[in-house]
């Protein structure tokens, strides 16, 4: 665990090495996304007071929550980093370290979350107080705790789904288009673009067994009190199941991929 926290520490220091970027990422990017969320909600509610089960107020709270939570889940700084390491041969240095590459990269992506956590604590915490929590939703210490657990699992699951996709670089050199595809699919089926409850009734069962819901929608629903304790534990079980499946797939792809690795660029 000492190594894990050391890697996290190095990444945190790295993220803080460039303070302009740090504050732009922490404040300006968040303000811009907040503006986008406001206009999306305004457009959605231009024809009436309710969309599905959401009031305008509830929808705004949902989007702000999903933006903040999405940043923690996605850890955008890490996108394409693993594929890049394989592509330009930087992986070689990790292969001579007496530790697991997966472990190092997971710890690194946890360290990359710092700006997102700053955003959550600086800006996210006061949103419910300013906007108020609309009728039908509730934020309590219990829902915050559920959200924290779901967020941890969502982040791990997102990393575990992304990891084998990035490892495709062992064969394809460049897998950028796959990453973009994954981002779009995960955003759509995970509830970032639209709340999943607005999807047709027939699709709900499918969405419930796919991994994407547990990356974004599930932590947000847990935070806003839209998940019963039973549904929460069931969701945690599905997320853990997906993590196990993806960990097995990752190990398999890694084993095969490193046989292909040529270390070009070294």
């Amino acid at each position: 665990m000492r190594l894990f926290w050391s890697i996290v520490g190095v990444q945190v220091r790295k993220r803080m090495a460039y303070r302009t970027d740090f504050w732009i990422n922490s404040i300006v990017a968040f303000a811009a996304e907040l503006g986008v969320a406001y206009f999306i909600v305004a457009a959605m509610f231009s024809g009436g007071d309710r969309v599905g089960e959401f009031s305008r107020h509830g929808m705004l709270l949902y989007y702000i929550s999903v933006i903040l939570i999405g940043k923690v889940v996605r850890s955008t700084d890490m996108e394409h980093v693993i594929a890049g390491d394989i592509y330009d041969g930087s992986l070689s240095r990790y292969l001579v370290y007496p530790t697991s590459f997966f472990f190092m990269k997971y710890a690194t992506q946890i360290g990359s979350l710092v700006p997102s956590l700053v955003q959550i604590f600086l800006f996210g915490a006061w949103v419910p107080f300013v906007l108020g929590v609309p009728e039908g939703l509730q934020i309590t210490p219990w829902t915050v705790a559920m959200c924290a657990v779901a967020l941890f699992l969502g982040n791990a699951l997102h990393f575990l789904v992304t990891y084998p996709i990035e490892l495709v670089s062992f064969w394809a050199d460049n897998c950028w288009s796959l990453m973009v595809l994954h981002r779009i699919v995960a955003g759509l089926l995970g509830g970032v673009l639209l709340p999943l409850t607005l999807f047709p009734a027939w699709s709900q069962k499918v969405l419930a067994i796919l991994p994407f819901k547990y990356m974004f929608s599930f932590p947000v629903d847990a935070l806003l009190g839209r998940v019963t304790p039973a549904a929460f534990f069931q969701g945690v079980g599905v997320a853990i199941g997906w993590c196990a499946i993806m960990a097995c797939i990752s190990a398999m792809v890694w084993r095969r991929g490193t046989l292909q690795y040529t270390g070009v660029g070294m």
Partner: protein
Amino acid sequence: MIEATKLSKTFTTHKKEPGLKASIKSLFVRNTITKHAVKEVSFRVDEGEIVGLVGANGAGKTTLVKMLAGVIHPTSGDARVLGHVPWKRSNDFRRQIALIMGQKAQLWWDLPAADSFLLLREIYQIPEPKFRATLDYLVGVLEVKEQLTVQVRRLSLGERMKMELIAALLHGPRVVYLDEPTIGLDLTAQRAIRDFILKYREEHRPAMLLTSHYMEDIERLCKRILIIREGEIVYDGLLEKVVQTYADHKVVTAHLHKRPEPVKETDELRAMGQVEKCNDLLIKLRVPRLRVAEVAGELLKRYPVADLAIEEVDVGTIIEKIMRERSA
């Protein structure tokens, strides 16, 4: 310590002709070429030895190093480094080796080197007192104390290379692979790195495999060299023996007292050896080893010689010659 037996590596890469038409075609059909980067290479390196791996670009030096460091898998053959199969990458193996790549930064670019060293302490699980002692020793020898807290990307190339060396040696590796450690450095920095490597070898006696394009690195650091040509080892032996074995002649230079007329390249001079240079100040001849004494005597007798030098042919020239011969 390092033992390679019939080690081979074959790469398959895509081939694409230039032009738009070829680019479109390559979306559907791709031609591949197979390159035998390393062919049945066998050798061993013992404790305390620095062995130079010499060869032209693309000869297979780095591929060989990558296999022995466990970075890539061989196509066939076997290797044991400290008793381990490198590409199985056991942690016990990786704790005892270091790979220094002159062309690839291993430190965290955006952080001071001191931060990277702290992380490496955890990665290699180096006990704190040993870590402090080793770091102080390496920082002292390489004279980089002031630079420890400077962001790596702001360091000069020489300073960065010194930090890379520290990072690679902190855990006290028993086998060190040095891939072009002085590439791009100025002469002073090159000399500092060479001196350090020699000092480190004397004090710690690791097995070292060094690749370099700079003959001065090889001449200063290695008693033994491996010459690799198109993936094959064409020479494995002492550096001094290369000269004796492959240089069938020496260079005889006679510095003359100033003459009113330059020396002409006459038949008489050509009979002594291959004339490399002759003018009013000197005569330079390539002379077969067995005739050196005789030719030196002739020169002294026939010309107003002020000084006479008999030298071995430059080792770099000989190595180049070996590589040319084999390819022909």
